[in-house]
């Protein structure tokens, strides 16, 4: 049974908070947060996990056809998500529910895709968060193009492209690396290396640590402890700043672990050992934050409880919102194919409408 690459084998893994919840220093990256900000990050982590567990439960209850769980990756996503500012645009894959949350996208709107009632329930322009891209790696090119657009607009802002370890093998991702470097585009490539691409381990995607690949394309790469929200926040902020000031792309490899299955239809017991999960449980992103906040007194018991209550409320909101997502009217399947409309589709819609109304029990 293949094993994942152990972090101790690699150099440089930026870390500011150990798994035990101890603050440590790093020569190149630091973070300076207020107590409110620390508490805010903890709350984000808990709520993001709760979004994920509630959605998983809803899938198990037949309310969603599928769910792609981010369990274990909360810190990577919250750290990156909270580094993004108002002008920044994010291009996710299909697992970045934590980034969506940080960008202000209502989690209920994430569900439509997985329930099968729409293909993306929010307006990307509203929140600077693109619809999920299921084809692996395609969004890195979109992100690069968007960044080139920012350059031409002379606008303040940067782009963050999210993808996983598996995606780093895709042609499109490599082309995005080429383009972003030759055009010095303001894009940060945020790779959540969660060790597995469905059943393929990291070693099937690369012979060298992923962050080192950036050098081959001519831009910096950095590996960060993906379960350390403070380190991720620091590294992401720095990379986005680099981009904004015109220094071009950065590759961030957030070293983390996919605690759950690839999706709810996957069975990870077929390709990885339970022991591996146990190892990573010890590196849990929320536990270490909780430990740190408790130990330092930044958060007290009341606060922790309140956060749990907030999580329950959010979960109830998600559940109710999910159950209220109705199937679309079949005739809407012709909507929005073209911005300029289509007489052919108008004809087809009419035919379908006539056909459907010809059945007993149908409204004419």
């Amino acid at each position, binding site marked *: 049974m293949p094993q994942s690459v152990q972090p101790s084998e690699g150099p440089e893994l930026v870390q500011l908070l150990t798994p035990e919840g101890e603050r440590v220093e790093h020569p190149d990256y630091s973070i300076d947060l207020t107590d409110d900000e620390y508490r805010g990050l903890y709350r984000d982590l808990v709520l993001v996990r709760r979004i994920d567990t509630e959605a998983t439960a809803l899938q198990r209850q*037949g309310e969603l056809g599928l769910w792609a769980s981010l369990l274990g990756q909360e810190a990577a996503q919250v750290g990156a998500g909270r580094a993004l500012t108002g002008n920044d645009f994010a291009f996710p894959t299909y697992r970045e529910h934590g980034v969506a949350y940080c960008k202000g996208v209502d989690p209920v709107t994430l569900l439509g895709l997985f329930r099968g009632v729409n293909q993306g329930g929010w307006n990307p322009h509203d929140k600077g968060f693109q619809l999920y891209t299921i084809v692996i790696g395609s969004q890195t090119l979109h992100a690069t193009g968007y960044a080139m657009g920012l350059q031409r607009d002379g606008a303040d802002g940067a782009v963050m492209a999210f993808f996983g370890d598996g995606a780093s093998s895709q042609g499109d991702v490599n082309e995005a690396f080429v383009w972003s470097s030759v055009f010095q585009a303001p894009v940060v490539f945020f790779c959540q290396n969660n060790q597995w691409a469905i059943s393929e381990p990291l070693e099937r995607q690369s012979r060298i640590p992923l962050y080192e690949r950036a050098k081959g394309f001519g831009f910096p790469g950095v590996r960060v402890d993906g379960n350390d929200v403070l380190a991720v926040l620091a590294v992401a902020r720095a990379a986005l700043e680099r981009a904004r000031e015109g220094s071009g792309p950065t590759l961030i490899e957030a070293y983390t672990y996919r605690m759950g299955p690839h999706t709810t239809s996957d069975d990870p017991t077929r390709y990885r050992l339970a022991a591996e999960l146990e190892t990573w449980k010890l590196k849990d992103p929320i536990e270490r934050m909780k430990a740190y906040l408790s130990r330092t007194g930044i958060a007290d018991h009341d606060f922790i409880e309140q956060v749990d209550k907030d999580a329950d409320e959010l979960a109830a909101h998600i559940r109710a919102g999910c159950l209220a997502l109705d199937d679309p009217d079949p005739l809407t399947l012709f909507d929005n194919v073209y911005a300029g409309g289509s007489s052919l589709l108008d004809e087809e819609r009419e035919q379908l409408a006539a056909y459907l109304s010809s059945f007993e029990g149908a409204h004419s």
Partner: protein
Amino acid sequence: MPTFKDFKLPDLGEGLTEGEILKWLVSPGDEVKLNQPIVEVETAKAAVEIPSPYAGLVTTLHHGEGDTVDVGSPIITFDVDPGGAATDGGVAAPAQTKVAAAADMVPQISETQIPHEPGLVGGPAPKAGTEEKIEVLVGSGPKSGKLTRRPRKQVAGAVVSSVQRPPAPAPQPARVSAAAVGAHAEQVVGEVHVLAKPPVRKLARDLGVDLRLLTGTGPQGTITRADVEAASNGAAAEPAAAAAAPSRTIDFDPATREQRIPIKGVRKQMAAAMVASAYSAPHVTIFTTIDVTAAMEFVDRLRANREFADVRISPLLVVAKALLVAVRRNPLVNSTWDDAAQEIVVKDYVNLGIAAATPRGLLVPNIKSAESLSLLELARELNQLVATARDGKTPPADMANGTITITNVGVFGMDNGTPILNPGESAILCFGAVRDMPWVHEGQLAVRKVTQLSLSFDHRIVDGQLGSQFLADIAALLNDPALFAAWS
């Protein structure tokens, strides 16, 4: 007041149609929280824990451990409001297989309606065709297909409402208005000539019917198979199309004092044929007058003959037979001028055409291979031909491929004529009235039965000598029927 909610086994996203209860994690009477794991279910490959969709009291477990349960059937019931008053609805029952499938817009037949077949293992029988569990990584998995049709509305008249456009790709079922079927509706864009389906066009071509002359009775004026057949048979498909028979009474328009008769149908075709023939073959007509008293006596004897009792005998029969014998002696008259191939095609078979006046107009049906028929057979064929023609039912095949023709002007009381060749033929015999005439018979004046024969021929093929010879042979046979025996 208790509010009971069932939880049905969901499709766990693997195309599951059933699952086995491995282990209950709760018991009746337990209080459970929302999302608390309640049961472990075995899917194709692993055990899956299902979290509770409700908070409340467990009332009933519907299956035991080890039972195989259909997706969509209840596995557990909760009381979600054990102590309180009647709720105003609370949490809606989870929609079971409610995950919309884009391709499926009609109500699903619930899993339990599908008939079961007995299985080998205990518990509820596996559904037919679900032995293989299909793993689907990316969605809720395949659904079982429909097994019965969804019932359509009954429509009395032409309902198909908004279909004011080109016909729908899928044909409407027969129940839905016949007018909608082939609703070749709509503003026909552009100029239209003939409207007919390909099979109808082919039929028309085979029958020699010109579609442009017809008015269709099908939807939107399309020409139907029946229209073509009617035109071909001369039945009155349409008053307008009856250009066939020349009308006896003329309906003059009082304003112009003229009647305009459309040139259509048989008349048009016949006219075209005549023109083609008249202007391509150089016609020469020769005449002879003969004493056919002996032939008429022969006709009488045939009529009296028991063998010929069931057929109508006419002089035409004897003339026909005489022509056939003469053809054998002068084969070149039974030929065609093939201009395209630059060849004269002489035929061994004689498809003998008889010009007939029918309700549709002048037609020339022929008797195929008449030379091979006995006199009796020939008689029968003639009867049949005449009767059919008189009824207007001559099939087109009978009018094709004639090789030589007889036209009888005698029935009109005429003596002879200058007949026009049937296109594709080289000779046509015209047979006039048989009259009692003064004649020189054995050196004495006598009253004899006399008739005239005229023969038109295609001078490209038949020269004067051949034509005369041929006509003389016919004349001789009619003058002295004993020659039938001599020349056979």
